[in-house]
């Protein structure tokens, strides 16, 4: 049975275990890297002073909020002096000279980084198969086909697999269209995407700046609350960072409200889904309904347009963000006779197929003659999607959906991009609206694979969202 952050901290406080022993326990599993969930594992020497300092604080009975907790960090967060590749070839030699805002907070709170988690190249993918450093293997196996290696989901696939395999207590991921929630669901863990603007994007390798958001992948909802307490802060270096006062997400996590809670279930999300997926929703309804919770059928009018909108806007922003990789100031430079050749060769050689494809889509929808028809139209539809959510949040407190339309699939199974993109059908609308969403494990499929449900909350209502997720987690009492 995996221990929560609170339980680990309590063991450290009672001296049942030392910070070093705790580190070594996780480091040993990480080091074996059997599922390829790490691009880089920090050797013990690197962490020695962090371990010593953390132990001192426990010895003085003044531990920091995440003191000694071993974490994985998606290889998309710039970490000072530690190679940060975005799982790409073009950044395969990049060593940042600054620390991302989010990882700064985690270090300030005493946590210890074990390594950098594998992910899809530049976070573009839903299976972790686009990584330059090879696919990540899901620690779970289909009980009817136990020899097949399955994807962990993506793009934070290494983060999800690392938490599921027990090589770190929690991992930091990023979510643009589902990249935290979808892999969390496929690996049987918790994944939280906060409201856009909650956690600073400063120092995160940018994919689509109007959508990217950092968030934790954890074993339980309470752990997600602990991490959110650390990372959700205003940062003046991110112009979209919100400066509202943050709640304490941990202290009242299990507090019950007397008020009736209304949860909307979008019936159009459930049309044509498999029985396994439908069961997750039905079962959640069943276990929660005794808690003074009312379930309502809600109807979106924009669902069928969400993926199209996303696959115009995200590649457009990506093609613009990835223009910086030119082989001049950092990253891998290819040979060329003149400057233009260097740009062309470095970029062509440096990007993998999926990233190239998305840059091309972006360049196309932003090009003269197509800008209004695609990009501008998608931005307008994005407003309609946001309005759609706002209308529904006038009737309900939360929205409940499946996290993914399917269980973990075989590595190499989905070859065409569109069928891969459809994996994010339940997570993309939330991202476009900028709303917070959390995926929690809800049960197993008939193949014995984990499935998740997603709760969506209103803007900056992470506290309430975590409360309902904690309640559902308890009622579902899902254990491996």
């Amino acid at each position, binding site marked *: 049975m995996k221990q929560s952050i609170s339980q680990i901290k309590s063991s450290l406080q009672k001296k049942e275990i030392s910070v070093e022993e705790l580190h070594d326990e996780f480091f040993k599993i990480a080091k074996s890297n059997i599922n390829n969930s790490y691009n880089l594992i920090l050797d013990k020497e690197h962490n020695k002073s962090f371990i010593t300092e953390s132990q001192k604080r426990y010895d003085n009975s003044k531990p920091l909020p995440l003191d000694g907790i071993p974490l994985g960090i998606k290889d998309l967060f710039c970490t000072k002096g530690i190679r940060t590749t975005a799982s790409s070839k073009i950044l395969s030699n990049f060593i940042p*000279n600054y620390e991302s805002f989010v990882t700064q907070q985690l270090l300030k709170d005493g946590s210890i980084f074990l390594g950098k988690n594998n992910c899809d190249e530049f976070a573009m993918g839903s299976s972790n198969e686009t990584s330059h450093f090879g696919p990540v293997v899901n620690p779970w196996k289909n009980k009817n086909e136990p020899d097949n290696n399955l994807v962990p989901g993506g793009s934070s696939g290494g983060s999800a697999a690392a938490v599921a395999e027990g090589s770190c207590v929690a991992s930091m991921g990023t979510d643009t269209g589902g990249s935290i929630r979808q892999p969390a669901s496929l690996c049987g863990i918790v994944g939280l995407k906060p409201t856009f603007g909650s956690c600073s994007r400063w120092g995160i390798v940018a994919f689509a700046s109007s959508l990217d958001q950092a968030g934790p992948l954890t074993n339980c909802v309470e752990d997600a609350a602990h991490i959110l307490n650390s990372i959700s802060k205003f940062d003046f270096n991110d112009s979209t960072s919100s400066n509202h006062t943050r709640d304490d997400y941990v202290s009242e996590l299990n507090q019950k409200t007397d008020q009736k809670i209304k949860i909307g279930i979008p019936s159009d999300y459930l049309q044509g889904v498999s029985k396994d997926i439908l069961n997750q929703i039905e079962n959640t309804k069943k276990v929660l309904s005794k808690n003074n919770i009312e379930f309502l059928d809600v109807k979106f009018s924009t669902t069928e347009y969400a993926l199209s909108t996303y696959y115009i806007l995200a590649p457009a922003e990506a093609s613009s963000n990835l223009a910086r990789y030119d082989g001049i100031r950092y990253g891998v430079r290819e040979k060329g006779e003149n400057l233009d050749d260097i740009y062309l060769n470095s970029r062509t050689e440096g990007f993998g197929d999926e990233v190239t494809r998305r840059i091309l889509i972006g360049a196309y929808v932003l090009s003269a003659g197509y800008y209004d028809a695609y990009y501008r139209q998608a931005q307008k539809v994005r407003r309609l999607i946001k309005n759609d959510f706002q209308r529904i949040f006038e009737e309900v407190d939360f929205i409940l959906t499946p996290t993914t339309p399917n269980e973990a699939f075989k590595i190499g199974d989905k070859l065409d991009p569109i069928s891969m993109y459809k994996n994010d059908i339940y997570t993309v609308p939330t991202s476009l609206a900028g709303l917070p969403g959390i995926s929690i494990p809800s049960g197993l499929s008939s193949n014995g694979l984990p499935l998740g449900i997603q709760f969506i909350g209103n803007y900056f209502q992470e506290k309430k969202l975590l409360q309902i997720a904690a309640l559902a987690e308890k009622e579902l009492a899902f254990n491996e």
Partner: protein
Amino acid sequence: MSDIDIKRISYLAKLKLPEEKEEFYANSLKEIIKWVDNLKKIDTKEVKPLHNVTEKTESIRNDEVYKNNSVEEILDNAPERAQNFFKVPKVVE
């Protein structure tokens, strides 16, 4: 939908696709553009584009200089350097 000029698009994106892959990307792009074409049927005449979802949070700050980086640290990542400069082939004829 008109045919996609993959050479032009890739040049706009500063990519030089190998010839044997041009068709692969052109087809892929065509398929995706066809797939997202359903947005065209939505009437958005009265709708303003949405750039930032939270709309309220866009903020400005004073343009003050902070010295957080050193030239040496930044040039450490340069593929090629000459003294305090990034080195590139001659650009002036």
